[in-house]
């Protein structure tokens, strides 16, 4: 393996509180030296970064493929993710086959991936077939490589089942990624508001999120009363002011809860929905009101929301080129991801990088590979041009 020395770079590593001009040395795929003094390596290639930024590769908590076991789809995803600086992407267990048993997890993880720069992880389903009836073999799937468990965009309405799932996940130390929306209150396609009602869109009530989160927090407290083992609860793509506040209070009580948001939800509000019925803005959860958008930004700033996920969804053109009601939610969120984060998150660059690197790596428990630029870490590095404006790629 070749050795590469990067010089004249701005090194940003929030985990190790590094933000300085300097360089780093990569040998055999690992970082062997890093610091302000590094100028030119002893041997191998020298790359002068001309003041560009080097930071840990981004970690994406969630991407949705039509078929996670398809090499073609994974290759396309890897390329898109790489161009937005991601070095690791976790696939949701939905699509053609629900990843609800060990063999399906293996089928995804044992593929020949086209691009080595982007590592593919996956979650397993919490219940068989997302039916919210029977628990899956979470322990076996975890041993096969699943980094956590999620019902994707389904919520588990049965509170007794949810309690059992949390108790069991606590026993084996699993991460549960929950889609916090009450099923019944969130069956529509647009946020409940006078103007979306006037457009004839089916309502999705914002309180659905707070209700689901409040229940799960209550269940978690109940379980912790009997002692906590290794359970971690992560709420995916939260979107409402009420949800941010509920999580903020729970975190202040020391509960093991994290959450993320998407770039869409702090960039846009439901005013994007108008007489054009633009299906690009059909999302799940839907775009919310302006006070919700501001609450998400506040949550990012005070640390309540630890991570930003792409929620990339691979769709066919036909899935969006139709009426608003028939269109599928989500889309190619990698397209503008970095630009939206930069322009709308209102976070200083190191803070933004933290929410894309070490924080999601900690949530997924993959900090031995991702999230920092410390010595002996694998060289998963992203390069950003010095103004921060253009994301160059994942190295």
């Amino acid at each position: 393996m070749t050795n590469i020395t990067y010089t004249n770079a701005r090194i940003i590593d929030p985990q190790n509180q590094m933000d300085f001009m300097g360089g780093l040395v990569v040998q055999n795929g690992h970082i062997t030296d890093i610091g302000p003094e590094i100028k030119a390596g002893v041997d191998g290639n020298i790359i002068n970064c001309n003041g560009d930024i080097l930071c840990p590769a981004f970690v994406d908590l969630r991407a949705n493929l039509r078929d996670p076991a398809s090499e073609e789809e994974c290759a396309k995803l890897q390329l898109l993710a790489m161009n937005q600086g991601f070095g690791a992407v976790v696939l949701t267990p939905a699509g053609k086959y629900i990843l609800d048993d060990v063999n399906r997890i293996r089928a995804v993880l044992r593929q020949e991936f086209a691009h080595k720069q982007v590592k593919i992880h996956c979650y397993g389903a919490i219940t068989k077939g997302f039916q919210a009836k029977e628990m899956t073999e979470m322990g076996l799937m975890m041993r096969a490589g699943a980094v956590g468990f999620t019902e994707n965009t389904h919520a588990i309405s049965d509170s007794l089942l949810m309690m059992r799932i949390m108790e069991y996940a606590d026993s084996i130390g699993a991460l549960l990624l929950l889609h916090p929306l009450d099923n019944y209150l969130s069956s529509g396609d647009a946020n409940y508001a006078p103007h979306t009602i006037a457009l004839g869109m089916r309502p999705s009530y914002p309180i659905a999120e707070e209700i689901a989160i409040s229940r799960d927090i209550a269940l978690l407290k109940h379980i912790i009363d009997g002692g906590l083992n290794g359970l971690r609860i992560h709420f995916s793509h939260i979107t409402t002011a009420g949800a941010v506040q509920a999580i903020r209070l729970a975190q202040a009580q020391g509960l093991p809860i994290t959450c993320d948001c998407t770039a869409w939800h702090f960039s846009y509000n439901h005013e994007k929905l108008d007489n054009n019925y633009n299906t690009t803005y059909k999302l799940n959860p839907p775009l919310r009101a302006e006070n919700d958008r501001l609450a998400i930004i506040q949550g990012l700033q005070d640390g309540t929301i630890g991570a930003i996920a792409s929620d990339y969804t691979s769709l066919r053109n036909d899935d969006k080129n139709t009426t608003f009601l028939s269109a599928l939610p989500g889309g190619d969120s990698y397209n503008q991801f970095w630009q939206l984060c930069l322009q709308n998150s209102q976070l200083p660059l190191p803070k933004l990088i933290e929410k894309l690197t070490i924080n999601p790596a900690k949530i997924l428990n993959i900090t031995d590979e991702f999230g920092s630029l410390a010595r002996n870490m694998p060289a998963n590095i992203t390069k950003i041009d010095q103004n921060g404006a253009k994301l160059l790629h994942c190295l």
Partner: protein
Amino acid sequence: MFQSQHILSIATMGMGDIDFILREAQYIDKQPNYYHDAMHREVNSGKKTQINLFIENSTRTARSFELAGKKLGLDVIDLAPNASSFSKGETLLDTALTLQAMNPSILVLRHPESGAAHFLSQKLHDCAVINGGDGTHEHPSQALLDLATIYKFKNPDVRGLNIAICGDIAHSRVARSNIELLRQKGANLRLIAPKTLMPRLPNYPNVQIFTDMNKGLAGADVIMMLRLQLERMSNNFIPSLAEYYQYYGLTQQRLKIADSEVKVMHPGPMNRGVEIESAVADSLENSLILQQVEMGVKVRMAIIYALLSRKSMFEYMPK
């Protein structure tokens, strides 16, 4: 000069165009035959095609548009959903491309999804799309014909008129269009429904919300009843049809609460004994329900005429 390229919703139509249609409808009411000849002369209507595409069941709106097109001399084609491929899994985009190939001048669309008419209007070229009802969004021609009916049979100005709209407002595209139109025209609107059937509305100064029908009807000049979709019961919007009739049915007794010269309207089809008592529906004194159907054809003629000719016929009319 008529501005709109399509008739998609009251909310997106300018007041100038709304008044244009209402005015032409009044002239058509007086001189129906003149418009047929004028259309031939002005836009060669014999060579124009009107396609009615009703993906949802409809009798009166479909026939009303068919009659309107024929009275203006257009070739009217009905694409019934059951007899066509549109019900066999073809996407709305394919439907649009197929229709484009037929080169129609007018397309009337009824569709169960809100925004479907907007979608087609973005895909079709040189064709005016008329929204004949899309999901729970709007039904603009119904609101226009309702207002034309009020103008003719009640009062030529609705400013200050007390108009009650009663029933399943949450799911009614007729109510959406009527609220928007009558609100803009300055009527005092009273919306009456149980909270389960009442959507959240912006705070309009001249719109009041009532859950008690007796309070909402007090002094009303016009009562617009809405059809209750019978499947609402199974979704727990109301406990039973019998109870609904007790609380929100328009009976002769309730009619006495309203103004003594109150007029009753209903877009049809009615559920007699559910939202309206037969004696009220058939009252020669109060009911305008059949007059609505009659004005419907004239307003739809005015809409088609306005979209194709774009200029008022009034100045050319024989006095």
